């Protein structure tokens, strides 16, 4: 039992594939679009942009989000900026260079054609956002400003102070509200998707829970699109919002959608360190800070307790500048995170628990002046001071790596459709464009590329080439999905054990951070694979979910999400164990170069690991999509 993974990449030269595909894809006549209903789960950059754009084209769209408003999606928290190959700065950028940087940054584990298309439409994204009134930073002459970001030697990042994510999201949220007012989109806020409905092998709807009344509802459609974000919260502590979860894509996985590269998780190097056991999430300090901040730790272990301003220059180890002279403090995230872990493991970490490194702005303040620094990073500095009670204008920031983004996700083809016909996946929820490591400022780019410019066209290809029979609410497969959801809710509510959901979530997170975090080993992963099933069994025996299902019940919501994390965690460890190489964010200690860099094994592992659910208690089936690089030569990633 395997899946035939066909990426359906168009033939021909790389820079003509998307253009060719747009011509060759089936179109849906404008008058026919209104006959189709599209379900969009998720209202972030990918989901919100897609819902608005598909509605503008004429489709009926039903959009779902678990928060109280579509504008709350976690895309809103992205700080630093969005990449696009505009070359406004005249420093050598081009579509090809953005493509190349992204493929290389992904450590050669992503599909060339998808990545090239991403770079190609990036220029349109900036135009679209500006047209919507996104207040990008401007130079005095009135033109758009740019800054540089990790993993690139050109300045191609567009930003809106330190809240680019919010401003981009407001652009598509506002467009979405316009479509809601027009009647093209029906919005279901405070509704959580709990299962996918597959009828005759095609995705035909979803089962959702109204989070206020507790009612379970079925929604049927012609096509289903998931834009439900990443699964970083499997680690409990991450930069994700508290509600972010894997449930929508996990349910799809259990209904047959392949889950690709689940172990490709990204650890962001600059987050505020953990303050105590009560820590509920980790706060990101934008990568853009590394444009001007210098990362260092004391050269001597004894100096770690000293106030940083008392440590002379000669006793400071600017380790990123030392190890990677060309990229220095702008080394890609995986490299910067591992380097931080390395110096802390050596005992030269700072702050409580010795798990922190300094990000110092003293030189930048001297060079540019405090006002310029405030203009660039003001809100980030305030955020830091509020949390730690330390002033980054006067003492260096303390930072430590934290889970931030997941490159893995549901497998999709060139049309962003999964192996379940009719099920499309966009944004962080899919696996496609970032390979084993995502570059900074590219998540915003991917979400909007998928949402504005790709999915509104590719669903037309599916709809235009498929005869869809109407599905009634009484259909057996529909009823079965609904019943399964009700049964699961009931089970979680009746256990009435002794441990809270959070206590289980925290414990799972620690296991994952320890054994499936920045540095993985066969031994550690096998240990995790013994611990996780036991923890999961204990969860189903002993979790305590108060209240009933027929009301707003945040513990019940959390319990369902943690139950899914307990299963995902196992698949992630299996995936990490199977991938006997190091690439991007996946670092196996057994596979490293003599100077401690990731050692890829292209001959054996240049493929996408697409896992297929084979039944509860049975091992998942591995399907491989070989990755072929026709345009970019496979090389050892070096940022030295």
């Amino acid at each position, binding site marked *: 039992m395997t899946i035939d993974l066909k990426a359906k990449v168009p033939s021909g030269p790389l820079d003509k594939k998307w253009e060719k595909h747009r011509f060759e894809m089936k179109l849906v006549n404008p008058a026919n679009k209104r006959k189709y209903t599209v379900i969009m789960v998720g209202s972030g950059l990918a989901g919100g942009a897609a819902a608005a754009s598909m509605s503008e084209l004429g489709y009926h769209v039903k959009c779902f989000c678990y928060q109280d408003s579509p504008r709350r999606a976690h895309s809103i928290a992205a700080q630093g900026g969005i990449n696009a190959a505009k070359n406004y700065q005249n420093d050598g950028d081009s579509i090809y260079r953005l493509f190349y940087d992204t493929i290389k940054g992904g450590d050669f584990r992503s599909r060339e054609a998808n990545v090239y298309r991403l770079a190609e439409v990036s220029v349109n994204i900036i135009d679209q956002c500006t047209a919507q009134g996104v207040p990008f930073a401007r130079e005095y002459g009135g033109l758009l400003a740019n800054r540089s970001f990790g993993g690139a030697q050109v300045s191609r990042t567009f930003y809106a102070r330190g809240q680019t994510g919010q401003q981009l999201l407001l652009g598509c949220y506002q467009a979405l509200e316009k479509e809601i007012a027009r009647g093209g989109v029906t919005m279901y806020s405070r509704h959580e998707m709990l299962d996918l409905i597959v009828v005759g092998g095609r995705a035909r709807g979803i089962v959702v829970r109204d989070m206020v009344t507790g009612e379970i509802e079925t929604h049927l459609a012609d096509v289903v699109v998931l834009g439900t974000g990443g699964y970083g919260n499997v680690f409990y502590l991450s930069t994700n919002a508290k509600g972010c979860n894997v449930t929508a894509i996990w349910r799809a996985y259990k209904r047959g959608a392949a889950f690709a590269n689940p172990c490709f998780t990204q650890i962001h190097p600059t987050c505020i360190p953990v303050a105590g056991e009560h820590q509920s999430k980790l706060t990101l300090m934008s990568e853009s800070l590394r444009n001007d901040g210098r990362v260092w730790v004391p050269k001597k272990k004894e100096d770690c307790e000293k106030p940083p301003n008392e440590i002379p220059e000669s006793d400071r180890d600017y380790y990123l500048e030392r190890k990677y002279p060309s990229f220095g403090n702008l080394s890609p995230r995986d490299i910067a995170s591992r380097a931080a872990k390395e110096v802390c493991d050596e005992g030269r970490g700072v702050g409580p628990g010795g798990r922190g490194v300094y990000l110092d702005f003293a030189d930048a303040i001297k060079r540019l002046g405090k006002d310029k620094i405030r203009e660039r990073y003001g809100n980030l500095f305030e955020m830091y001071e509020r*949390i730690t009670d330390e002033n980054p204008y006067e003492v260096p920031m303390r930072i430590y790596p934290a889970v931030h983004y997941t490159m893995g996700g549901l497998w999709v083809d060139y049309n962003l459709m999964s192996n379940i016909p009719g099920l499309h996946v966009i944004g962080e929820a899919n696996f496609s464009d970032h390979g084993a490591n995502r570059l900074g400022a590219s998540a915003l780019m991917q979400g909007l590329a998928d949402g504005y410019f790709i999915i509104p066209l590719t669903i037309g290809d599916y709809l235009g080439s498929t005869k869809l029979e109407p599905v009634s609410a009484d259909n057996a497969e529909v009823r079965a999905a609904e019943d399964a959801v009700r049964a699961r809710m009931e089970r979680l509510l009746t256990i009435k054990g002794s441990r809270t959901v959070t206590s289980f979530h925290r414990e799972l997170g620690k296991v994952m951070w320890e054994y499936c975090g920045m540095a993985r080993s066969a031994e550690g992963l096998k240990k995790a694979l013994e611990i996780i099933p036991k923890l999961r069994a204990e969860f189903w025996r002993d979790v305590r979910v108060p209240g009933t299902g027929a009301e707003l019940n*945040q513990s019940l919501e959390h319990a369902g999400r943690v139950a899914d994390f307990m299963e995902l965690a196992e698949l992630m460890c299996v995936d990490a164990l199977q991938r006997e190489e190091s690439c991007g964010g996946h670092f196996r200690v057994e596979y490293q170069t003599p100077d401690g860099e990731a050692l890829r094994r292209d001959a054996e592992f240049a493929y996408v690991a697409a896992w297929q659910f084979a039944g509860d208690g049975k091992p998942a089936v591995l399907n491989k999509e070989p990755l072929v690089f026709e345009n970019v030569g496979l090389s050892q990633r070096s940022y030295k």
Partner: protein
Amino acid sequence: MNLTLNVWRQANADAPGRMERYDARDVSPDMSFLEMLDVVNEKLVEAGQEPIAFDHDCREGICGMCGVMINGVAHGPVPGTATCQLHMRNFEDGASITIEPWRSRAFPVVKDLVVNRSAFDRIIAAGGFITAPTGGARDANSILVAKTDADEAMDAAACIGCGACVAACPNGSASLFTAAKISHLGLLPQGQPERYRRAERMVAQMDEEGFGHCTLYGECQEACPKAISIDTIARMNRDYLVASATGKEEKVLGGTG
């Protein structure tokens, strides 16, 4: 530190509510306010009781989901800080803290501290956008935007839609929220074609939702976690006035009108 909490509990929208007293023991000054509530909730669940329901998500002051009255002040005592960013080092050991949901007729209570703010989405739907369907945009650099305009638009665009302005206002007005969006879009060249229509329609929707009127108390600006200025309200009033004085009735023409 040890604290006494007085928290509003309400089972659902139709049930009456009441204040309940809870003890929060061994609270670390480095905990955030919501982490403190998490710990209280864990103890409640362990004791077989119902935890306190409250909205939250990003816990970094940007999504606008969280928001409670803390001792009668929206988002608590620290200016420019959302509830999730407030840390317990701002309170004294032994303090008594009263925690209530946003109080506004237009924000009905859903449960405990959770309120329904969909009125805000409807105000945006009425005109808080620029009509620019995907695909038709010209090169982003082809329209110059003066840095001062871009910065001022960004100041207004920073609104996170939390509703603290409504909760703090003695009239329960949503003027700061509505004005912030009107100002953000009205300051940019792309927002000009719809500028006056936008002001007229958003203000009409704001009134329709049952929010109060603005009589320039200025409490909103003080409560706003993003320090949005009431200058935006001046701008809204001006655009609304121009719209009322010069607006023409929209005609429904044949063809594509």
